[in-house]
Each structure stands twice: as structure tokens, then as C-alpha cells.
């Protein structure tokens, strides 16, 4: 499942070779670097880079929105290079700051910032969600599956839309119950509410529940385990959290993206800018299969997913991206 | 002095209670200064003094609420320390507070044993209490139904229960703090009979009251406190109300209100069929009819909470009601809103019953309180909704001068003034508006004797200027000495009306208990 960054360099629209020797820096979004989800994955990538290279790096956890721009400028003024921002909320701020520091390289993860000194790393979450959707529909005995999102924003719709499309591709009659956790920042870290929503979905017949809700998802997976049904993890491989009751996880290799960005920014590396789009074709998103869920995934299911993967890579199947139309053909 | 007086009326060798040199300060305030007190066995000892004279502090020290800075306490000749109320109870001291300390939804028996239950089971304690209670009831005329819930008891019965509680805890010294404030005259008589019975059984009783009449009737000896000091202790038979009042205030006081006969003019206020129902659906006023004429004081007598407060509140615009009220022949809008303001505009001033909760804002300075309710008058306004603070302060300063309000500092917060001076601020404010009708509730509650005299004079002066005055008071003496006519309220109705010169305490007492008209 590992992807090589070298392969991706080919897709870059612009190539800037920049022999930076400064210390790299990373800014985590409001959830904090120990959110068991996206930020933590980025943090792990940075740690891995530190161990592998022996180089140090700086990091900063946002406490408020106002610090977004402040932290970016601080790191840029101090000469950090490259500066990595984890989270789609950096887009607007980065567009301004990148112009003000043309000699500094920036990395935007999860969003596209069209500036010559920015590498934008985006994941095609809809493709990965499509794959776990197939698995969910095939594993479901009741014909009803669930989805718990963090907040009702387009980014999360991208997950749910791919999930529904994948499920419908193998069982057109499958019912998908969708819930969002909340409307404030707390929605990303509310396991109790996540558990409650999951129990409600179970009472309505769901027997597989996929979450895209950060820390809230821990409650989703816990409730699924308690009720003896299946959960599906997200972002990093969460199969190990409840072995035997996590069907699979939709894995985004955020840590790889951070690791690669820091390595490329090294004295010996070559830093490229432009859009890096990670999907099923280059292994940036995938479904996880390990000893914890080997018994849950039948050969038939594997075959169905492999067929879908092949179709995506070949271009025969284009999974609809919610962001392109801000609507979903399936509901 | 001390030794001499002891010889004079203490037949027993050791007094039941003896205090020597008790002093207590709160910061710069000296609440008790070098107090000596001696109460003989089988005696009723009165303590009188104005508000803030230090009576409550002294009793609190005795009951273990405060620790004295210095001084000694002897019970039956033995010196003891009283660090808390349990020790006081163990030493045989019982206390009946002004505000009863009873659990409302418990029965009489449950209240009796509260805090002195023995063992893990309730039943044995209850049986024990039932027996003791029956004995005590026979002995002292202290009948209370042991199974009744507190909320169903009359105020008099609740007080008897407090006394029973103390006796059940084997009290030999009983302290009563202003015990008659909430009682009808009949109930008060009953209380004093009980106290005399207790005295005959050798109990010692300390009676704290500001009613000089009660001191004269009930006590054997009396001590007077003034500004934290015990100024004198005398045998009751050797003194008079006037003498006690002089000792309390430090100068001669006129106890009788000096007033000419009323000269009533045209009708100012007429109330017809006034009804009030409270939030719980309980009828508070039932078909009240009243008239007050110019140059006349109508007194409303009655035990507290029989509808007097509601009557004042409706007239003052604080409460809505059904019926009609007309001032100078013009009907008043009884709906609710900011009616307090429009009442003032048509000439009704209101000195409320509870100046702490209504009449003043205790956290405001005195000058801010001097226009409370009149702050929207044009003379106190400046453009843009600002207040004309200079004008307000001038008004306040004027009133302080004319009503002799002390300390003479309008910037002080209301809490810093004594009860009498606070009341003067309120009365000055309301009287100076030159109203047609003055509503005045409990004008001298918590007010020292010196100020009472002044306040009474002001009320009579206003009457003589041809104003109509509605006076509500639970102090019968005050009603009798000020009013030209008396109406008695009982359970939301007017149980009878009298011309003051043709009635007396006994007559009114019956009306207050709701049985007047039937017997006359």
C-alpha cells in the first residue's frame, strides 16, 4: 500500500528546485496534534522524519483562528522552510502569506493554494470512501448502513457521497442513514454524541457504520463494537481499536505527505510545488486490510474492491467528487 | 452598683446566669462593651435597647454563635466556655428566635427530636418525645398537636413548639428574641402566661423586646442597653416606660403622640370591592371597601400576612387587582406595568412596609435613594437621558438637613445608615412630594425610639395639612395612638372598623383573630 513520492513528482504542474537547508515547521489545526485522527497522523509523519533524518523541526498547535496567519508569518519570518499547514482551513490565509514570502516554500495539506511557492497535497477521499462503501454494502445483512460525519460541510459530504455511491454500486437498494454530529468545533471531538448517533442508526437497522468525524469517531466505533455490529474507521488505520468489529478503515496517508514534504525540503532533497493529488491510483487513499479484519473481508468482497480499484486506476470509473458540483447524485 | 442590686432582688445564692465583662468588636464597631449581667433563678429578665444597641450580639455570644473578645460566662456559679450552640444547649440554654427554625414539612414531633434523635431508629425517639411532650403540655399550658405538620400550625403554635423544643432539650435558661412581633394580642397573653408558669417552675427567662409595655407587664428586672453598653439594670416595679425610654435613648422621649382631633374634609380615596388572587390561586384580598378623607389617618390593624401587604401593593401600583379604586373621584388604572410611576404622578406616595426589599436600593448611595421612584421628574433630568445628579444631590442634602438624617453624608451607601435614618430617607422622599394620599406601611419597624417620635410627628403633621393617610402597622399601640379610624384586616377581609376613640386593644384583638363582629 505504500506509495512512492518519486512517482508522483511526474504529475506536478510546476517544478521548483529549491535547495533549502532551513529547519522545517508544521502547524496543526485547532484539533491539536493528539486528536487520534488527521492532525495526529500529520504529527506522526513529522516525528518519523525527525527520527529518520536526525533533523529537528518546529511545530505549533493553533488555539484560535487569529493565530492561523500569525503562526504562518512567525515561522516564515524566522526562516523556516518548508512550512507545512495541516488542514483545509489554511487556504485563504496561505494565499496571502505565500505572496508575502515568495522565497519560502509552503505545503498545504487537504486544500489547493494556487501559488508558485506552495505544494498543495489533496486526497481523493471520495475514491477511498467508494471502496469502503462497497465493503459496507456487502458486509451488511440488513441492507441498511450508516454514516456519521463531523459537521455538515462540503468536505465531509465528499466522504459520504463516495460512500453511498460505492455501496449502491453493489446493492442498488441499500439504505444509507446519514447524521452529522454538530455545528460547532466541538463536533470533531465529541465521542459521546458519536456513540449516541450510532446507537440511533443501529436501532433503525444499520449494521455497518462509517465515520468521518475525527475524535468523535472513537465513540462511533465503540458503540458499533458494543452492539456487535461493524464500524469503519477513517484517516488512519483504526482497525486495531476494536479488532473484529472494525470492518476496515479508509486510510489517508497524511503522515506520508508530511514526511515527504519535510524530506524534500532537506538539504539533499528536491522540493517541488504544485498540486499533488493522492488517490487510489497512487496509493494515497486506500482501505486497510490487516490481521484485525482479515476474517471480516471475504474473498468475494476483496474481488469486488479490486475490480473497483482497477476501474478507477484505468479511468473506466470516475467516482463523483462532491466538490465539483457541490451535489451528490446519490443520497 | 452590681453588688447592691444583687442584694435587692436575688434571693437565691447563685444566679442562673452571670456575665462578667463581656466585650465584642466587629472591626471598628464595638457591639458589646464590658457587659455585666446577672439573671436569678426563677426570674424573668427583660433586655431593652434600640436597634444596634448590641442585644442580639450579646445573645449570640451566649448561644455560641460568636466568641466574645473577652469576658466570662457563669452558669449556676460555674464558669464555662461556649464555643458553639451545642455547648449552649448542653449548658441548659434555650433560644427562641424571632424567625422560627422549624422544618416546614415535618410534624411537630419530628421537629422536636431533630438533632437529638437517639439510636438508629426513629420510632423509639418519637415515642419518648410524645410522652415528654404530653407532660410538658400539662405542666406549662403548652398544647400543640404532636402529629400536626408545621405548615398547618398557627404562628402562636409554632412559637410554643420552639419553646417546647428548648424545654425538651432540658433548657433552664430560655431566651426569647422579640417573641410577640408576630402574635395577636390574645396569643401574646397566652405566651406570657406560659412564661409565668415556667418562671414558677424555677426556669429563668430572658425576654428581648422593644415593646416597653411587655417589659412592664411581664418582667421582674430589666436591663437597658445603649450603644453596646449595659447602661442600667433596674427592678421593673421601680421604673416606668418613660424612664426606660429615656435610658434607651439618652434623653427625654415623648411616647404619647401629641395630636389634635382630626378635621376630615372631602373624600380622597375610595376603594370598592377590591379582590386580589396570588400566583398560587389563593385569594389574598376579598371584597375590600375603604374610604379615606382628607386630613384623616386610617389605620389598618391586623396580624401580619392577612392582606395588608397586598392592599398597600395594589394601591401603590405594584400589583394588579379587580375592583375599583378612585382618587379624588377619578378611577385609577389597575393594570400592571410601570404603575408605580403613574401613581406618584397622580399624587399617591408610598412608604413601603419593607424598606430593605422595596423602599431603597441598599447598594445605592443615600442621594441616589433620595429620588428613587421620582428619578424621572423633569427637575432631575438632563438631555440625552442623563440624570441631573447635581439637582438630585441638592434635594438629598436638603432632606438630610430637614429630617436630621445622620450621618450627614449623602454619599454613603444606604447600608451604612441605621434603620431609623434609612426610614427617614424614605419618609422624607415620599412626604416631600406633597402627595394627596400617603400610603405608609410599618413606619417604625426596626426604627429606634428616638426616630419613632420624629416619624410619628411627621405623619401627624401631614394629616394636619389636609392629606389622606393610610397607615398599616402590626403594632397595635402605634395604630391606636396615630389613627383617627381603625380598620382591622383578617384573612383578606376587613373584619371590622372602629373610631379610634371608641375602641381598645381587647376589642381590636378580637377583630384581629377574626371573631370581633360576631361577639359584639
Amino acid at each position, binding site marked *: 500500500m505504500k506509495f512512492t513520492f518519486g512517482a508522483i513528482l511526474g504529475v506536478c504542474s510546476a517544478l521548483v528546485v529549491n535547495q533549502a537547508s532551513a529547519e522545517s515547521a508544521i502547524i496543526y489545526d485547532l484539533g491539536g496534534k493528539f486528536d487520534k485522527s488527521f492532525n495526529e497522523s500529520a504529527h506522526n509523519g513529522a516525528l518519523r522524519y525527525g527520527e529518520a533524518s536526525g533533523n529537528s523541526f518546529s511545530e505549533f498547535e493553533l*488555539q484560535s483562528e487569529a493565530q492561523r496567519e500569525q503562526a504562518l508569518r512567525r515561522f516564515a519570518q524566522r526562516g523556516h522552510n518548508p512550512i507545512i499547514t495541516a488542514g483545509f482551513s489554511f487556504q485563504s490565509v496561505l494565499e496571502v502569506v505565500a505572496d508575502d514570502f515568495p522565497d519560502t516554500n509552503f505545503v498545504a495539506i487537504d486544500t489547493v493554494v494556487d501559488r508558485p511557492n506552495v505544494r498543495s497535497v489533496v486526497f481523493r477521499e471520495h475514491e477511498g470512501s467508494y471502496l469502503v462503501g462497497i465493503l459496507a454494502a456487502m458486509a451488511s445483512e440488513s441492507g441498511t448502513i450508516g454514516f456519521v460525519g463531523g459537521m455538515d460541510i462540503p468536505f465531509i459530504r465528499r466522504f459520504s457521497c463516495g460512500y453511498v455511491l460505492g455501496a449502491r454500486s453493489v446493492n442498488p437498494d441499500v439504505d444509507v442513514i446519514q447524521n452529522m454530529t454538530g455545528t*460547532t468545533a466541538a463536533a470533531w471531538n465529541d465521542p459521546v454524541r458519536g456513540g449516541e448517533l450510532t446507537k440511533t442508526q443501529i436501532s433503525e437497522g444499520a449494521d455497518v457504520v462509517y465515520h468521518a468525524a475525527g475524535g468523535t469517531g472513537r465513540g462511533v466505533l465503540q458503540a458499533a463494537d458494543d452492539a456487535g455490529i461493524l464500524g469503519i474507521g477513517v484517516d488512519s488505520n483504526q482497525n486495531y481499536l476494536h479488532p473484529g468489529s472494525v470492518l476496515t478503515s479508509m486510510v489517508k496517508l497524511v503522515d506520508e505527505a508530511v514526511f515527504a514534504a519535510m524530506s524534500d525540503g532537506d538539504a539533499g532533497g528536491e522540493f517541488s510545488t504544485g498540486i499533488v493529488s493522492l488517490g487510489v491510483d497512487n496509493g494515497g487513499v486506500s482501505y486497510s486490510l490487516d490481521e484485525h479484519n482479515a476474517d471480516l473481508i471475504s474473498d468475494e468482497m476483496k474481488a469486488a474492491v479490486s475490480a473497483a480499484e482497477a476501474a478507477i486506476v484505468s479511468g473506466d470509473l470516475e467516482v463523483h467528487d462532491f466538490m465539483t458540483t457541490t451535489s451528490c447524485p446519490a443520497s | 452598683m452590681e453588688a447592691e442590686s444583687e442584694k435587692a432582688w436575688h434571693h437565691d445564692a447563685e444566679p442562673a446566669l452571670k456575665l462578667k465583662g463581656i466585650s465584642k468588636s466587629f472591626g471598628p464597631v464595638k457591639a458589646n462593651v464590658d457587659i455585666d449581667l446577672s439573671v436569678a433563678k426563677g426570674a424573668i429578665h427583660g433586655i431593652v435597647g434600640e436597634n444596634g444597641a448590641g442585644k442580639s450580639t450579646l445573645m449570640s455570644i451566649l448561644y455560641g454563635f460568636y466568641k466574645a473578645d473577652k469576658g466570662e460566662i457563669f452558669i449556676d456559679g460555674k464558669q464555662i466556655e461556649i464555643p458553639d450552640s451545642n455547648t449552649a444547649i448542653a449548658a441548659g440554654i434555650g433560644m427562641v428566635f424571632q424567625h422560627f427554625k422549624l422544618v416546614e414539612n415535618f410534624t411537630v414531633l419530628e421537629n422536636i427530636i431533630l438533632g437529638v434523635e437517639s439510636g438508629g431508629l426513629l420510632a423509639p425517639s418519637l415515642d419518648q418525645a410524645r410522652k415528654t411532650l404530653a407532660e410538658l403540655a400539662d405542666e406549662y399550658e403548652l398544647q400543640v398537636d404532636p402529629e400536626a405538620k408545621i405548615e398547618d400550625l398557627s404562628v402562636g403554635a409554632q412559637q410554643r413548639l420552639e419553646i417546647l423544643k428548648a424545654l425538651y432539650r432540658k433548657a433552664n435558661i430560655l431566651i426569647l428574641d422579640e417573641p410577640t412581633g408576630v402574635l395577636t394580642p390574645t396569643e401574646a397573653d397566652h405566651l406570657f402566661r406560659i412564661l409565668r408558669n415556667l418562671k414558677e417552675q424555677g426556669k429563668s427567662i430572658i425576654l428581648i423586646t422593644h415593646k416597653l409595655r411587655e417589659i412592664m407587664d411581664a418582667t421582674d428586672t430589666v436591663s437597658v442597653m445603649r450603644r453596646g453598653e449595659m447602661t442600667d439594670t433596674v427592678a421593673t416595679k421601680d421604673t416606668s416606660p418613660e424612664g426606660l425610654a429615656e435610658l434607651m435613648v439618652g434623653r427625654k422621649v415623648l411616647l404619647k403622640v401629641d395630636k389634635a382631633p382630626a378635621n376630615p374634609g372631602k373624600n380622597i380615596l375610595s376603594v370598592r370591592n377590591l379582590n386580589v388572587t396570588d400566583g398560587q390561586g389563593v385569594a389574598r384580598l376579598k371584597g375590600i371597601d375603604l374610604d379615606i378623607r382628607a386630613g384623616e389617618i386610617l389605620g389598618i390593624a391586623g396580624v401580619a400576612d392577612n392582606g395588608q401587604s397586598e392592599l398597600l401593593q395594589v394601591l401603590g401600583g405594584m400589583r394588579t387587582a379587580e375592583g375599583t379604586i378612585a382618587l379624588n373621584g377619578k378611577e385609577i388604572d389597575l393594570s400592571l406595568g*410601570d404603575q408605580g*410611576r403613574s401613581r*406618584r404622578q397622580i399624587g399617591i406616595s408610598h412608604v413601603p412596609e419593607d424598606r430593605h426589599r422595596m423602599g431603597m436600593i441598599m447598594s*445605592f448611595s443615600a442621594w441616589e435613594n433620595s429620588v428613587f*421612584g421620582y428619578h424621572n421628574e423633569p427637575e432631575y433630568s438632563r438631555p440625552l437621558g*442623563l440624570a441631573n445628579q447635581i439637582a438630585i444631590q441638592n434635594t438629598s442634602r436638603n432632606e438630610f438637613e430637614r429630617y436630621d438624617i445622620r450621618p450627614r453624608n449623602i454619599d454613603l451607601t444606604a447600608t451604612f445608615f441605621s434603620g431609623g435614618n434609612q426610614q427617614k430617607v424614605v419618609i422624607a422622599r415620599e412626604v416631600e412630594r406633597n402627595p394627596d394620599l400617603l400610603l405608609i406601611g410599618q413606619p417604625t419597624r426596626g426604627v429606634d425610639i428616638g426616630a419613632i417620635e420624629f416619624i410619628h410627628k411627621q405623619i401627624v403633621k401631614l394629616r394636619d395639612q389636609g392629606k389622606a393617610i393610610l397607615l398599616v402597622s402590626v403594632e397595635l399601640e402605634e395604630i391606636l395612638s396615630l389613627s383617627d379610624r381603625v380598620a382591622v384586616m383578617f384573612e383578606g377581609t376587613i373584619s371590622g372598623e372602629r373610631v379610634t376613640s371608641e375602641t381598645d386593644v381587647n376589642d381590636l384583638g378580637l377583630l384581629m383573630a377574626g371573631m370581633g363582629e360576631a361577639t359584639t
Partner: protein
Amino acid sequence: MNSNIPKWVDIGLIPGLNLLIAFALAGIGVLVVGESPYRALTILLQGALGSSYGIGYTLFYATSFVFTGLAVAVAAHAGHFNIGGEGQAGVGGIGVALICLSFLGDSHWLLVFPIAVLAAVAFGVAWAFVPAYLQARRGSHIVITTIMFNFIAAALLVYLLVNVLKVEGTLAPESRRFGEGARIPQMNEVGSWFGLQLASTPWNISFFVAVAACVFTWLLIWKSKLGYEMRAFGASAEAAVYAGISPFKITMVAMTISGAMAGMMALNTVMGESQRLILDAVQGAGFVGIAVALMGRSHPVGIFLAAVLFGILFQGGAELAFEMPAINRDLIVMIQGLVILFTGALENMIRWPISSFFDFRATAKEAAQ
């Protein structure tokens, strides 16, 4: 019985001591993670006040806190606990954004800013109005209803940013950037008009609005008849009715002014800083405002000082996180929490021994005379 405490002790010494205790305890926390508390404090103060850059950020945060602190204080004077500053400011932000995103956004800030102020006020007031009405007419407790309205405001913001104001093709739920005309001057620009060299920070001219709001509040509460009625009602509702003050009117007016104050907070972040509407434009200032009002004793001067203190904690705390990686943001939140605890909640803890001391001194003095 605090009559013996001199005023300087009341408003200077006691808060100062409280702050000292809070910092001492926080210092222990810093020691535990293996850093020097002295260096940490130096970084914190240097970072917040040591440069025009630090001061700019400090006062930028303080501006938000002044608005929300005043919002809490105005309601508190009338006896109401407006816990809905967060929601009122959030909705105020919608008002500001709608003006800035309209055709006005392409004109000049001198035109846009006054209109945006009115919009912030109108939207903040609208959000405070319903809880106020429910309290005044139906007796629904304002603490509960304002909390509920915080949630409704959050939901409304999400809906607007996802469905109405969102920019096509972006993931983040936020509006587009405002036009040049809707950009209000930051203080470094204002400084340059007068030849002052200031670092570029989000500190902007809404700071002046905040100062004006302080003056307005002082006039309102202590100099106007309305403020007099509000304080009377807050001290004793029964007495207010006695004096002919309508509880309905006072509740509505107090909450209206309170909501207006909270709404104006959005000027600082939406128009002065982010230049677009984002989900978390309020940045928790609604709740910090409660602590600020508590610490500032609901007096405008106190609120201003408390707001600056919290600005120092926020900006200095960020610097601390930059300079001392061992001090993570949880430790910084702990330091901020200790300050709130000691200056707000446990205020009486230190007041009691001090007032006893002054009582004792007064007694001793009198005894000596």
C-alpha cells in the same frame, strides 16, 4: 463589612495578589515540564508587551474581550446573566459580512465601516432580543435561552457558510475575501499617518470603537436615568417595581444593549482581521467576556484592564508555545484557567484575610486613641 479596605487595595492590591498566586501556581506547572518559570514569564511578557508586534496582537485580542466583557457587564447590572455573547457575536459577524460582501464592499471603508457597525449592532441585538423577550414575558431563564441561542447561531453560521456564502471549489466553509473597500485600516497604517512605525498586526481601528463603547457604558450605567433604573432593577426587582420601573422594559433594553456590544465584537475579527466570514470568527471571546466582566467588576475601566490582561495571556501564551516547545497549548490553557480561577472565581479567598487585616488595623488604631 469591607468598609475598612482602602480603595487602592480593593481595585489594585487584591487583583494583583490574585494574579501573583495564579502565576506562582502556573510556574509550578512550568517547572514540572522542565522549563524555567522565570524564563517562561519573561517570554510571556516580552512576547505580549515587548514589541509593537506583541502589543498589536495583545490589543487585538483585548479589543474582542472589551466588547464581550461589556456585553456581560451591561446585562449583569440589570441582574441578567447574558451567557450568549458567543452567539450574538457570531450573528453580528454575519451582519458585518453581509455588508462587506455586498456592493458596498467595493466602495471605501469610511462608508462601509459605519454601516458595518450598524449591521453588527442590529444582528447582535436581534440575537439577544428573543431570549430577552422570553425572559421578560414568559419567564424562561435567560441563561438557558442564551445558551440555546449560541447553538442556533452556530448552526445558522454553518448553514450560511456551506450553502449560501461559500466559495465554489474550496473545501473550507468560509466566505470569499472582502473587497478592498471593506478593509478597515490596521493600527500600523493609522500609526504611519502620524509617522509612527508599528509592526503589521491585526490590531485595527475597531479598537477605537471598543474604547468608545467603554465610555458609553460608563455614561449609561452611572450617569443616565436608564442606567440608574437598570442598576436598581438588578439590585432588587421588587424595589424596582415599587419605584415604577417596568421589569419588561429594563430587561429588553439591557439585553438589547448587551447584544449590541457582543455583536460589535465581530467588527474586530471579521472586518479587522480575517477579512472574510469563517466558522469560528468569535474565537471563544464570548465566554472569555464572562471572565473579563467578572474580573473587571462590571466597570468599564476594570473591563478594559482585564481585557488587556487576557490579551497578554493569549498573545504571550502563543509566544510561549513558539519559544518553548515543551510548553504545549494545554499548559497555556491551564495558565489562563488559573488566572480566571483566582481573579474571578476565588476572588474572595484572598479578600477575606486582607479585609480581616484592615479590620484588625482599624480596631487597633481606635484602641490606641
